[in-house]
């Protein structure tokens, strides 16, 4: 069973990292609070379902359209709501969270509840790893997660847009002086992050069902990972994913599944008390303030 815990811990950690990528890009890297992230994740899932099941659009096309649509909605949210609150982080958080909750509740009220809201997996079957059988879809998610993490790392270090995202988070006025349109970059960052949420939804949601509660869980885990890893550090987010992922798996295996939600919350509290800027955070002013 210990071997199984190690393997599932790894899988859960990579799933956590994949889910967090988009949130980390906007909140961690660009400094834009998008607490509607969970709602956008679920929006992407339901969009794929509607396109595939109701409009009979081919599955891969439905996924691509959903990613584009979710990115568009994210960009719209920033352009028409968050832009007006730029710089006022508390209000950005409240406004974006409100948008996320509206999305989740809208689907609930519209009756999108039930196990029929599932997405087909990409690969079926199980793969034996040692003595543990793992479903192939989870291994597929691990592969996608690694590819996306690498892509994000390269994107934020070696592309103009990625560097601009980091620039507006580090020092916005200097970025402006250098000709970086911070509003445009922030809009792109939120759109990009929303698109990453949609990719995560497309590969992860086939494991189970599309349910509104999943949006709140995604947001909570994403916040925990970014805070523990440190804002502005993709590497930190990956390390934090593994810490929290294994902690959750260990807790579920040896203590009980109903304690796993507390793991993320405890992680946030512990890191804020011990090292507020996070494990690899670059925002030293947080520590200086504390």
């Amino acid at each position: 069973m210990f071997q199984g815990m190690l393997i599932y811990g790894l899988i859960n950690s990579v799933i956590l990292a994949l889910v967090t990528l988009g949130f980390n890009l906007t909140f961690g890297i660009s400094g834009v609070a998008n607490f509607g992230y969970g709602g956008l994740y679920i929006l992407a899932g339901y969009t794929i379902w509607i396109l595939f099941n109701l409009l009979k659009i081919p599955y891969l096309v439905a996924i691509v359209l959903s990613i584009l649509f979710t990115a568009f909605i994210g960009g719209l949210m920033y352009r028409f709501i968050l832009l007006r609150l730029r710089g006022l982080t508390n209000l950005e958080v409240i406004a974006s969270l409100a948008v996320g909750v509206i999305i989740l509740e809208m689907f609930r009220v519209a009756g999108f509840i039930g196990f029929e809201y599932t997405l087909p997996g990409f690969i079926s079957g199980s793969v034996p790893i040692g003595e543990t059988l793992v479903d192939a879809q989870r291994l597929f998610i691990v592969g996608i997660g690694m590819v996306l993490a690498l892509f994000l790392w390269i994107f934020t270090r070696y592309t103009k847009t990625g560097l601009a995202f980091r620039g507006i988070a580090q020092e916005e006025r200097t970025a402006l002086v250098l000709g970086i349109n911070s509003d445009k970059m922030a809009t792109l960052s939120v759109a990009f992050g929303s698109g990453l949420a949609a990719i995560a939804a497309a590969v992860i949601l086939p494991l189970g069902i599309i349910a509104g509660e999943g949006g709140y869980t995604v947001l909570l885990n994403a916040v925990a990972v970014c805070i523990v890893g440190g804002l502005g550090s993709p590497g930190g987010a990956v390390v934090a994913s593994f810490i929290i992922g294994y902690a959750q798996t260990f807790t579920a295996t040896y203590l009980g599944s109903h304690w796993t939600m507390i793991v993320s919350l405890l992680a946030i509290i512990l890191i804020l008390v011990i090292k507020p800027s996070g494990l690899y955070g670059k925002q030293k002013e947080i520590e200086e303030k504390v």
Partner: protein
Amino acid sequence: MKQKVILMVGFFVLGIFFTFPHSAYAQLKPGEPVILGVTAPFAAQLESADALKVATMALEEINAKGGVSIKGVKHPLKIESQDTRDILPGVPVSEALLAVEKVILEKKAHAIAVGPSRSEAFLASMDLAAKYKVPMMACHSMTPVVAKKISEEYNKYKYVFRVGINSMHMAGIVTGMAAFLNKEFGFKKAYLMVQDVLWSRASSAFVESWLQKEGWEVLGKDFFPTGASDFSASLMKAKSTGAQVVIPMFDMPEAGILLKQRNAMKVQAVTAGNIVELAHPEAWKMFGDQIEGCLNTIYEAGNIPVKAMPKTLIFHEAFRKRWGREITIQHGVAPAYDSVYILAAAIERAGSVDPDALVIALEKTDYAGVNGRMRFDKNHEIVYGVNPNETAVNIGFQWQKPGKRVIVYPETVAEGKIQLPPGMKPVK
């Protein structure tokens, strides 16, 4: 003398003051509707939405025959509904109570045919029923605490009745199926996977205690919060400890993931418990033969067509005609239909909508409903058993090829025998 006159007038005025609202409330004008409240989380829970639909169906059927007769005068039934949202995580109980109070105070309901769904909310609304003296029926809430409160404080909580099952009844279906698995195949090792809410905790405690008393080995018991979507740790433990029977108890949609993970991890054990999705008539289309051999529960017989209970066949046909689809939920829907009929009959027996008279009339209920013979015990709970001619009935069924729900329990209504899933061998 003057003092005596003043005293008499004073008593007369007081008498009018205390009895007038009561007696006025109890006397409907001719043609004035009898108002039944339906307070449940319709938007968030299909069983509540369908409870409203079947209550409406019952109302339409009764009104088509002229309505409810009170002392020879016909009164139509009318439903006033409010969404309590009590099933949603994070929604406080106080919000559900606001909805119930609105139906009582603003909509002037004479009785509530369907109360809040979650036990926590229903227990809290019992105090409202007591405060405003409004008979209230539980169709979804399953906690045994309802009966306990009625038995301990009868005069206060006498207005509350339960038409649906409680968690002990549900546990009884599970233990009934476990007994059969032991008798036929020699299985004696079980692993419990339970949703962390009141009804399932209570049911699982009963099941665990029964299993231990009957000499079973309970290899483990895990609780999952509502919304949990990963069951791999528990399934790993069930597999590594050699469980022969996995007993799940869930009413959340995410529980369907358990079956996907069970099959991926190739856990060789019979699944015999309660997963809401498995009760759905289309579950085979969603999960395919992954659910072959899974044993599941229908809490109240009326929620599934039962050949041995003709009223269920008529009820399901009527629902299909009225709403264009099947009943897909195993709990709380059929009781809501019977609840309206039970209340209508009680109002006719009482000859009034006076709450105290209604309570006495409800206690004398003996109604042949879609769930079987409906009679209340001394704690205002419908009596459930194994013979529909004597009691209301719960159902255990198994998914069998080519994608059919075969009723296997109780024997009085069974339409087939339990079969082992592919790849599993009996121990004896």
